[in-house]
């Protein structure tokens, strides 16, 4: 058991180090001079070459890949993400502000997704193969094929442009969150319905269930005591997967709705070639993902001790 | 010649083979007998380098055995064939791998001896009987004229008459081509009839090793005697000897 935990933590650490390395390698090979970016951030003006050379030496940019990597990584391990290469402002607080916009959006999107997919999956699996099931599968298939940015544009077209019921761009009022969250939620619902449906069907198909029915155990009791725990493990997996889906969706949705948040922060930073901001988003998001996956692996172990390692 | 020099194999913390030494000259047959779980199949895997040896080494005339291209007749005959390929393709694989042109006359002769018709080879492994697959396994092991052949329970899926015919064919071919044969079996009757030497394996160790005739006449160890007497009681020894 202890070996299992140590193994998990070791793996998580290696994955994070790998992400940092991949990010740095990308920055190292990206067109543009990182020392120049730092110089611009620090002095907000054109600086003489000697200053840039000095920064290059200070940051270890001229010492080769690995030394530069260590110089680059060390402040981030202390939680210091440096200053924006464009505005010169500290990246950390700005990132937190962006997160404070993205988190409610993601949560609301997840809620909408659950509110749609759970009833749909339950109704669908009451009579597998019947018309309700077919309709929900068809809806989920179509939903999975609709790109979030197009869905967002369609919703803007309908509710903001044609009907004029809801605001679309920005985040000034509370109502501004409705359309982005709906866009995100519909996408979540499509993927969740499929996964929940197959999870429920599998749990219902478990060999021991007919025995309960023969013994006269009520359908509701069976549902509550025996199907629900079996569906729990796939549901936890789903949350891991949906987290990725939510971040991905949020990036696109925020750009479409011009909503401040992690997505606009990232895309804006990439367009401006603002390396400190980009790397901060990547490292923070990767840490978030690795942590969540670590928790999921631990939860698996608690729920079903037979599972040694997920996906191993 | 094959030289196995004090090999030991570890599985987890336990030693499944302990200090096994044996040697085998061309043209000769060594039978390794013992009950299930004695380590017979592990011995074959260790000799072929399919499992790592914790100690000791295996050589063929002083060189690593692998370069001599020994062949193996597996205990599970059907899993030794790729279900997606025709049996002919699998049988000719040793020739293809060594860049030899397939010798069709040799193939026909071996087929005749093993009582296999040529059209069987155009089927897939699961389309022929288990006894046929086992004989096709022997066919593949012999097709490229190897210097050493290892047999792991080669006749287990055959009826008594076929067992005798097949054992005869292997013996005749060995006399003609001079390969060395190492046979792992629990059938002491077969071992006594066809092997020059017999090694008794028990719990990963060789209990005794010596000439087959001498063993049948007078086993050196108590365990050897138990094995022989059990075979006498079953009628296995008289039947062939």
């Amino acid at each position: 058991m202890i070996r299992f935990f140590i193994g998990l933590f070791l793996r998580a650490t290696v994955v994070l180090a790998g992400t940092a390395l991949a990010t740095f390698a990308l920055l190292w090979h990206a067109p543009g001079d990182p020392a120049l970016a730092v110089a611009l951030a620090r002095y907000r003006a054109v600086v003489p070459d000697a200053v840039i050379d000095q920064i290059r030496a200070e940051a270890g940019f001229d010492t080769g890949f690995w030394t530069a990597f260590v110089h680059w990584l060390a402040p981030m391990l202390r939680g210091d993400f440096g200053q924006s290469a464009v505005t010169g402002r500290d990246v950390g607080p700005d990132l937190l502000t962006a997160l404070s916009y993205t988190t409610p959006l993601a949560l609301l999107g997840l809620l909408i997704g659950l509110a749609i997919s759970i009833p749909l999956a339950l109704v669908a699996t009451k009579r597998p193969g019947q018309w309700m099931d077919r309709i929900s599968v068809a809806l989920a298939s179509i939903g999975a094929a609709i790109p979030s940015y197009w869905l967002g544009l369609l919703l803007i077209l309908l509710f903001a442009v044609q009907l004029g019921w809801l605001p679309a761009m920005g985040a000034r009022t509370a109502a501004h969150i409705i359309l982005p969250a709906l866009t995100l939620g519909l996408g979540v619902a499509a993927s969740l319905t499929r996964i929940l449906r197959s999870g429920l069907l599998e749990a219902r198909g478990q060999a021991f269930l007919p025995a309960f029915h023969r013994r006269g155990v009520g359908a509701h009791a069976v549902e509550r005591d025996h199907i629900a725990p079996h569906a729990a493990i796939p549901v936890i997996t789903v949350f891991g997967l949906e987290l990725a889906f939510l971040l991905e969706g949020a990036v696109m949705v925020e750009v479409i709705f011009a909503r401040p948040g992690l997505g606009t922060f990232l895309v804006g930073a990439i367009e401006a070639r603002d390396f400190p901001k980009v790397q901060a988003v990547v490292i923070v998001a990767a840490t978030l993902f690795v942590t969540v996956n670590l928790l999921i692996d631990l939860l698996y172990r608690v729920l079903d001790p037979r599972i040694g390692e997920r996906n191993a | 010649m094959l030289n196995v020099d004090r090999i030991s194999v570890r599985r987890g913390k336990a030693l499944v083979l302990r200090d096994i030494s044996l040697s085998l000259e061309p043209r000769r047959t060594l039978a390794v007998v013992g009950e299930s779980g004695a380590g017979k199949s592990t011995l074959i895997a260790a000799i072929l380098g399919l499992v790592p040896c914790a100690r000791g080494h295996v050589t063929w005339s002083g060189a690593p055995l692998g370069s001599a291209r020994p062949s193996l007749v597996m205990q599970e005959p059907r899993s030794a064939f790729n279900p997606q390929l025709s049996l002919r393709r699998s049988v000719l694989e040793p020739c293809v791998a060594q860049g030899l042109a397939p010798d069709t006359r040799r193939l026909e002769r071996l087929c005749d001896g093993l009582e296999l018709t040529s059209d069987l080879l155009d089927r897939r492994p699961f389309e022929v009987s288990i006894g046929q697959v086992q004989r096709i396994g022997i066919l593949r092991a012999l097709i490229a004229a190897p210097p050493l052949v290892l047999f792991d329970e080669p006749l287990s899926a055959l009826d008594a008459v076929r067992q005798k015919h097949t054992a005869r064919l292997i013996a005749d071919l060995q006399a003609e081509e001079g390969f060395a044969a190492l046979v792992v079996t629990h059938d002491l009757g077969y071992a006594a009839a066809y092997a020059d030497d017999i090694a008794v394996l028990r719990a990963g160790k060789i209990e005794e090793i010596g000439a087959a005739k001498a063993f049948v006449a007078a086993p050196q160890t108590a365990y050897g005697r138990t094995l022989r007497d059990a075979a006498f009681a079953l009628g296995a020894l008289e039947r062939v000897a």
Partner: protein
Amino acid sequence: MRSIMLLSGALLALAVLGPLIAPNDPMAIDIPNRLGPPNPEHWLGTDAMGRDILSRLLHGARWTIGLAFLISVAGLLVGTALGLLSALGGKVVDWGLMRATDTFLAFPDLVAAVVVAGLLGASTGSLIFALTVTGWMRYARVARGIGLSVKSRGYVIQAQLAGLSPLATARWHYLPSLLPSLTVIWTGMFARAILGISALGFLGFGVQPPVPEWGTMLLDARIHMRSTPLQMIWPGIAVVCSVLAINLAGDALRDDLAGQHHAQ
């Protein structure tokens, strides 16, 4: 089942033949007729530069679907090779490669692709690299799993003893077992690549204008959403139909293989 396969066949044919049946030049600018509604001459109307939208969609099929095909096949080759290497290369190689796979899976692939393509500079080359580098992990996992199970089978040991070359062993003994599962994953990744290409195009990090890639067309159309909303509808429908057709074909293929598996 057959009808779905036909549908996907038609889709691929569209990618190949689309430019040939396009009625007009997709690049021909006609400012006086800009943002025109559907009419007998321009069935789907014209865009902000007066270019024929139908012709642009048909030419765009080659970009969006063609590039997605290329990217999904590149991911298939890279992922399968790494997965097999992981299965057969020994414990250290396996551990290293699987942690690399975890690392690439630690991040949503589309966001990673945005970062990679954006930082390398917007171009078709960056797009292909970004989506391939973020799209090989599923193949690698599955190829490794199957590789590990095939490795211990009798016929692979026989091939090893016979001295069959690694390439021939992979071709004859591993590939037949890998192919069904990898094909199913490939359909999913093909669909994802279409979504990825159009998403990156829409963000401006993918194929660059004036090339009529569907995501890029959406980006152009977005500005004129109020005046000519239809212009924005068409590329979206093209993406949805392509992705849906490929996904349905993939589902059918998977059910078919599961059925065969049960029958055996």
